[in-house]
């Protein structure tokens, strides 16, 4: 398992390739990458704040739960913080399991938990000013299916 919290960008292709090496008994690898998108027009950047003392341990706990629950061969979580431009990669997860169903499901679980249980806060910087992104109720209800 690897969990990385960083301001630097990452190379999706080499991360995915490295993850897919030497997997014991895995027949499926699923990856997901989140990208900064300009939803309403006029977005200049996304600023991502986090809680340095807590982020690494919170992400590790979420990844460990996914590994145990879906018997994953491995899991990867990379999440960036700081100022990101439109089109930049924010984060990625990768999961490896014997079968694709578990790999897909574990990746969705990781994403749902990262959205509302990992200590990150997004702020949209536009030409007109800056605004904190509000948590969506959908994101909270998405967690219920994993209980």
């Amino acid at each position: 398992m690897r969990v990385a919290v960083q301001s630097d960008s990452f190379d999706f292709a080499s991360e995915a390739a490295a993850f897919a090496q030497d997997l014991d008994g895995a027949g499926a690898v699923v990856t997901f990458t989140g990208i900064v998108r300009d939803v309403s027009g006029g977005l200049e950047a996304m600023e991502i704040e986090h809680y340095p003392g807590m982020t690494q341990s919170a992400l590790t706990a979420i990844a460990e739960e996914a590994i145990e629950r879906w018997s994953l061969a491995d899991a990867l979580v990379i999440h960036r913080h700081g100022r990101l431009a439109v089109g930049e990669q924010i984060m990625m997860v990768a999961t490896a399991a014997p079968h694709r169903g578990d790999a897909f499901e574990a990746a969705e679980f990781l994403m749902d938990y990262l959205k509302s249980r990992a200590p990150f806060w997004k702020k949209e910087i536009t030409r007109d000013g800056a605004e904190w992104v509000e948590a969506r109720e959908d994101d909270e209800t998405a967690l219920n299916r994993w209980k």
Partner: protein
Amino acid sequence: MDVLYFAWVRERIGAPKDKIETNAATVTELVDELRAREPRYEAAFADLSALRVAVDQELSDFDAPLAGVREVAFFPPMTGG
């Protein structure tokens, strides 16, 4: 005890952190003490349903006890991913 603030909670209070001597038994009691300090704290803690709390870097509840706790953090619902 270190009290940390993130996102708009930090902005409303105007500082990322306070060092506080407190006898508060629970998070709620700590919030009451903070609110009584200054209007900017009152503004930040006006609506507790809009806030989340972590106690010693783990997500927690407002009725959590504070005995032996070293760090409490207040922030809005998280928006990672």
